[in-house]
């Protein structure tokens, strides 16, 4: 096939940027070369050189250096990778961190999401408007835009500065204050600094209760040696001693369930990848953390990155992989830097690469960066994203263990799930299973945010009561009274002050009809504007839907419209007519959407309506 393009030329600089990425191709990938791939849900993709997966890295490079993706650059890239320009455009226009029109040098993404709102009891982006004028308006090569949760909720406000040019930077500031921001921006770009704070209140009060977070805030995140001094790489050693089958047995014995939201038994997943006779196998660490209110994975990546490298290496060993990927959200610059450094350091020390620790086992890890899309955290959407496609979820079956990344058997786990593996190998699967409750083994990370005295990351055995957790965090901020708690994130549900005795275990929340999701515990006090919070959740799903299936693409729009009508008393018919209509929208999204986004998009809203939290 000859690709036809518009013939618009790329500039010298654009070519230089792209050539640097494309020069990484030393040979066509024999496994994926020159084939027309049809991905899991049947969308055909032409892939001439087998390197379409460089599409996202190349678009990132353009965005960073040039500040936007021009038609000429897109055509040049398309030809080089053998991807039709219409498809490249389709990919670029899917992600919110890419600009397809000339954009200012500096774009400030300000979080106006629910946890920061609940902490401030105000719109966190309001101060920006007062200082810099309305959003999306360009002044002095700068503009600001509103952003969904930036994973820094424990600070109560956050902003990501995306600066392009030869000195390009991404900087995540939290807490963020308009004056600090303005001061920072007056300094040379290279002096802008990422916030590097850690909030683990248990560190002071009960350090012995920390297992997964044992090293966080103690270990030097940049040093293999420091990691080893704190027990690092003992789990990998043990794994290599007992062999892949026994590692899987330990994981099965531990009854570990995935921490990414779906709570699937990890051992079962690993076993089905390991047993699949199709080769190669891949293992992916899901570090896309974008569920509003969630910041646990970021803390681990920033403060204990080697634990992820080690956990993923063990996963690769147990499931017969030679290649692993970490897919990290694009809004996490410090986490990315630390993780990249850890991967390089591990490679230098023979802990990645050929013959790891002198054994007949080779494994390496590649870091891939997302570009602003919550849906890319859904596992099959994530595979598409790595493959250089739009992050649209695939229909399941087939499941990842049968046909995942590049249509090969693939294991995928959340960051928190993977670091539990280290714990399992160090205490043994059976001993691990005794922590927590019989049906929910181990400890769990909880992200406490909003109106709480000591926001931060907490670790507690499964089964801990919601109220006890709130107490550990010092209760509601400034001694105010509790109005509601959002459990599990935007895809979770609200619970009322009378539900503090819910045991936080998989079975405990199931009985209560709620979910643990990604471990979000977001506190709203008496003064919280619940209507704004609930509308923000509806907006989130409407803006993050991939748009593929009708129930979610249109349903999330109708849900937001309906809530706006309720809030402004502009109802179609009576309030009960509107509630009935809401019920129908919620049910078609839950029953008939392709993926978890649409299936859960009405959960939080529905629970809020049930609890009478929404006024109107």
């Amino acid at each position, binding site marked *: *096939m000859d*690709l*036809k393009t*518009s013939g618009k030329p790329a500039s010298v600089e654009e070519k230089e940027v792209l050539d640097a990425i494309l020069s990484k191709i030393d040979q066509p990938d024999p496994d994926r070369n020159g084939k*027309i791939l*049809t991905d899991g849900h*049947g*969308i*055909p*993709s*032409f892939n001439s050189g087998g390197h379409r997966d460089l599409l996202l890295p190349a678009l990132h490079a353009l965005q960073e250096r040039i500040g936007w993706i021009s*038609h000429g650059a*897109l*055509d040049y890239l398309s030809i080089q990778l053998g991807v*039709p*320009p*219409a*498809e*490249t*455009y*389709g990919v670029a*226009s*899917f*992600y*919110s961190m890419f*600009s*397809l*029109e000339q954009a200012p040098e500096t774009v400030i993404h300000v979080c106006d999401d629910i946890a920061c709102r609940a902490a401030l009891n105000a719109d966190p982006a309001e101060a920006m408007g007062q200082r810099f004028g309305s959003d999306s308006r360009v002044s002095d090569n700068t503009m600001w*835009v*509103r952003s*969904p949760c930036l994973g820094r909720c424990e600070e109560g406000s956050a902003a990501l500065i995306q600066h392009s040019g030869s000195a390009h930077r991404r900087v995540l500031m939290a807490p963020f204050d308009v004056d600090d921001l303005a001061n920072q921006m007056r300094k040379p770009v290279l002096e802008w600094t990422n916030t590097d704070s850690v909030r683990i209140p248990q560190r002071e009060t009960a350090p012995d209760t920390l297992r997964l977070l044992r090293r966080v805030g103690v270990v030097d995140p940049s040093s293999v040696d420091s990691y080893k001094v704190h027990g690092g790489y003992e789990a990998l050693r043990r794994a290599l001693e007992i062999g892949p089958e026994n590692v899987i047995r330990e994981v099965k014995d531990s009854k570990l369930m995935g921490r990414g939201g779906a709570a699937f038994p990890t051992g079962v997943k690993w076993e089905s990848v390991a047993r699949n006779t199709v080769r190669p196998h891949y293992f992916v660490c899901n570090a896309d953390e974008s569920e509003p209110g969630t910041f646990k994975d970021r803390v681990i990546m920033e403060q204990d990155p080697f634990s992820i490298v080690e956990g993923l290496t063990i996963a690769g060993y147990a499931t017969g992989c030679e290649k692993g990927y970490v897919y990290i959200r694009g809004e996490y610059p410090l986490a990315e830097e630390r993780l990249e450094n850890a991967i390089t350091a591990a490679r230098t020390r023979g802990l990645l690469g050929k013959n790891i620790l002198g054994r007949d086992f080779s494994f390496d890890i590649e870091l891939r960066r997302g570009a602003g*899309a919550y849906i890319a955290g859904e596992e099959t959407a994530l595979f598409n994203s790595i493959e250089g496609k739009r992050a*649209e979820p695939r*229909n399941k079956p087939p499941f990842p263990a049968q046909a995942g990344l590049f249509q090969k058997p693939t294991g995928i786990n959340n960051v928190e799930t993977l670091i539990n593996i280290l714990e399992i190998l160090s205490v043994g699967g059976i001993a691990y299973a005794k922590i927590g409750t019989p049906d929910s083994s181990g400890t769990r990370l909880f992200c406490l945010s909003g109106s709480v005295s000591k926001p931060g990351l907490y670790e507690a055995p499964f089964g801990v009561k919601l109220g006890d957790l709130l107490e550990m965090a010092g209760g509601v901020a400034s001694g105010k009274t509790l109005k509601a708690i959002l459990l599990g994130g935007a895809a979770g549900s609200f619970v009322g002050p009378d539900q503090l005795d819910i045991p936080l275990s998989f079975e405990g929340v199931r009985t209560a009809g709620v979910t643990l999701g990604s471990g979000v515990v977001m506190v709203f006090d008496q003064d919280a504007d619940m209507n704004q919070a609930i509308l923000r959740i509806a907006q989130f799903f*409407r*803006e*993050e839907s991939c*748009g*593929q*299936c*009708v*129930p979610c*693409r*249109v*349903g999330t*729009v*109708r849900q*937001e*419209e*309906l809530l706006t*009508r309720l809030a*402004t008393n*502009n109802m*179609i018919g009576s309030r009960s007519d509107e509630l009935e*209509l809401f019920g129908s*929208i919620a049910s*078609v999204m839950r*029953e*008939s*959407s392709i993926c978890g986004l649409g299936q859960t998009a009405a959960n939080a809203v529905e629970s809020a309506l049930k609890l009478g939290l929404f006024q109107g």
Partner: protein
Amino acid sequence: MSNGVAVSIQRTVKITVNGSEFTAPEGSTILQACRSEGLEIPTLCYLENLTPVNTCRLCMVEVQGSRTLVPSCSRKIEPGMVVNTESDRVQASRKMVLELLASSVDMSIVSDELSEWMERHQVDKERFGPQALPAQLGERETTHAGHHVRGDGTLAATVFEPVKIDNDQYVRDYSRCVLCYRCVEACGTDAQNTFAIALGGRGFEAHITTEYDVPLPESACVYCGNCVAVCPTNALMFKIEHDMRQAQTWDESRQTLTRTICPYCGVGCNLEIHAQDNKIVKVTSPLDHDVTSGMLCVKGRFGFEFINS
């Protein structure tokens, strides 16, 4: 294999649908199995000769043991599967999918079959409020992913926008587009291998587009018209038909259909010539034809314009 006679052993699978048990060939989808028994299930994005994308969710059915409904067009049957195609859950989902579509997309010229389904479910396109006015040309296409302006909720958002007329062969009226992905598949590996169009944008602003929304003549399009042939809602329409509809002269009851073999080359594509008042108004190809599967090239599809002129 040498000179042997290929013996195909067709294995069958026993399933139960709406309470009655029957067998269907192994590897069939629920939809295929049901249709072979004469059971009706509405579909929109599915087309026999294209890879199922299962995005419209109109064909959802209930399968015992499954938490959610499942798309019958792509789920394969399994031994002992218990399916319900008519339960209240299924009916409720079907009605809502149709209403969500009709509220946001212009479905005024869809197939008789789909119209019938919409009537059967008493689809009310204004159930979510009066429909919002069309966007400006290019407005939906340039919306930045992850951003939108919240209205007051009193008007139901739509995908309405002006018709795109940029060539003499066909027009693109994306107010009618249900995002079934069929045209993209037909332009891609399922037939044409041209890849002139793709999905762009995200969420409610997702749309079919060329790169940077350039007009078709600047794109890779070769005017085979295969995308037009597969479009279920007439979002893609041949220019002649579009013009005649505008002039209110389009009248299918006055049209005749003649089958012939395409004269342009030796492949032997089957053509269906639609004529009105002795003038050729459209050329299609039967879906079930083993050479074309409904697909043609620009000569077969548009060569008639030389005859007409």
